[in-house]
């Protein structure tokens, strides 16, 4: 049913591309939640009006093209080193807003040490952590977050705790550290969860703007390609398999900066 000019003129624009999300086509696979997370970060930057003073640090993984999508300065870090690189940037430019965007191989495997120490030092940065239970970019190998029994290209008969250990719960782990100011886990599988996710990401940036210290948001995400699922089944898996093991919620929220 075609609209006439009057109807068109009366329509209100309620949803548009965030200003700092570039008008390019994502390289992500269909149904991949990296697209949602990237967008939510861009929205948060717009909403706080911090585009001119935000610096992103991209991990190595499917997020590696972050500089193509978010219209802020982005520095690529070597695999796993994003938190250390971000610390360096932030110490030189404490007035800038510095965030990292990392996957679970990048942050929870090879980069675990610097992530933990960055949180422990209470560096005033924001970490966006995409947990999709596999190394996505390299083709679906077992990650530290891979669920028990989950098949991957390096655990063809499913992950076993004997030998492979248990899926690592980053949010819970970081919440134990004094230096962490805000730690939350969210998911992208339903509109409601997406709204919660957006709130948490915004909150994390707000903590940094208010100089509260280290803020961390773990986002449970689907990797339909490496899970061998269509996007809808992949979102169902997030709900059925991931959230029971990786509960959603806020694990830590400081109300005053710890040096106050």
């Amino acid at each position, binding site marked *: 049913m075609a609209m006439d000019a009057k109807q068109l003129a009366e329509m209100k624009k309620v949803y548009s591309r965030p200003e700092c999300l570039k008008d390019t086509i994502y390289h992500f696979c269909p149904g991949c939640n990296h697209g949602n997370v990237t967008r939510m970060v861009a929205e948060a930057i717009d909403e706080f009006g911090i585009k001119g003073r935000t610096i992103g640090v991209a991990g190595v993984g499917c997020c*590696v093209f972050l500089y193509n999508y978010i219209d802020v300065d982005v520095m*690529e870090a*070597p*695999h*796993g080193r994003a938190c250390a690189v971000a610390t360096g940037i932030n110490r030189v430019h404490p007035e800038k807003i510095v965030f990292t965007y990392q996957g679970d191989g990048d942050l929870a*495997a*090879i980069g*675990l040490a610097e992530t933990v120490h960055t949180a422990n030092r209470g560096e005033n940065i924001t970490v966006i952590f995409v947990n999709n239970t596999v*190394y996505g*970019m*390299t*083709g679906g*190998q*077992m990650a*530290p977050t891979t669920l028990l029994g989950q098949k991957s*290209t*390096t*655990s*063809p*008969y499913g992950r076993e705790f004997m*030998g*492979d250990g248990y899926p690592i719960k980053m949010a819970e782990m970081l919440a134990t550290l004094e230096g962490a100011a805000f730690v939350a886990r969210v998911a992208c599988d339903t509109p409601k969860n997406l709204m919660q996710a957006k709130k948490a990401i915004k909150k994390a940036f707000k903590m940094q703007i208010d100089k509260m210290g280290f803020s961390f948001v773990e986002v449970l995400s689907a990797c339909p390609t490496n899970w061998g699922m269509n996007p809808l089944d992949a979102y169902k898996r997030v709900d059925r398999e991931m959230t029971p093991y990786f509960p959603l919620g806020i694990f830590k929220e400081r109300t005053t900066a710890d040096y106050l």
Partner: protein
Amino acid sequence: MKQVLMGDHAVARAVQLARAEVISAYPITPQTLIVEELSEICARGELDARFIKVESEHSALACCMGASMAGARTFTATSSQGLLLMHEIMHWSAGARTPIVMVNVNRAIAPPWNLWSDQTDSLSQRDTSWLQFYCENNQEVLDTVIMAFRIAERIFLPVMIVLDAFILSHTSEVVDIPDRKDVDAFLPPFKPLLKLDVDEPHSFGSITGPAEYQQIKKMRHEDMMDAIRVIKETDDEFEKIFGRRHGPVSAYRCENAELVLVTTGAMSGTTRIAIDRLREKGMPVGALKIRLFRPFPAEEIASSIGGAPKIAVIDRNLSVGAGGIFAQEIKASLYGKATRPAVFGLVGGLGGGDFTPDAIEDIAKRLLGAQAPEADVIWEEL
């Protein structure tokens, strides 16, 4: 049995045939096919190995070192950034005299990111006391991995086998896969010289003063130099059983050559095609493939060049501030010789540029007419 295999899968088959007991690795493109295939092989029970998935390459090699000290035959594989992260443990594992075998798929170093072939990753490890072999095709990859275990376990130094990203790692070729019983005959079970053993307690890696330290380094150097002999013997024994040998270097149509093209890795086969074409046209050119980089086969290189007045070393690698790494090493090794050729140091194909037969033919034609190199580094735009 002949099979069509990608280079990475040839590695996995070789490791299976060699009956590695501990494999530890972290994924990185274009090595991933090796570890994926090995984890499948282990999971199917076709190789009785512990496959240890760790959180980084640094830990992967450290894990192999522990396993080797505990008496197991160990293997790891990596590429580029992963190899660079292993650097500390490369020195350590060689110093600990652990005969680990590693495959490195040559890939360019970031930044900028690039997934394609470039030898700077492995050549940057030249001072770590690891042996290094550069392979030309997937058959050589499979054979060299099997030989590597035998060499490593004879001289108690670790061995790295290198293959070009994608050009070999992901390209299918016909590979003759040896029989299991023949490989068992060629490669007996690993017998550690020293190992962690409660019945015979030792401690490893203690502190030494300058005198002992230098003595230990000297021994390691001498053992590394002696490895050339062991490598040749291993080649002889391999040939007896499998009918193939690969040699530290191999010369092709170098007789009466005015110009010898010196290459490594996958471009060596391409170079021979170019040489055949040029020889047909009556041009006096030959080729020399270098398979072994550490220990450096200086004598073998000098004698293979023969009396050629000019050689052109084609380096798919770069030591920034110095030039192509094979060219540097060859120049240094020829310096003391009474007659030595003019050495043209060519650098090209960094980050994956393709050396086609035409490109190599052009290089040869150009240099046949040249008197002396116009610069230390001659850049080849492909």
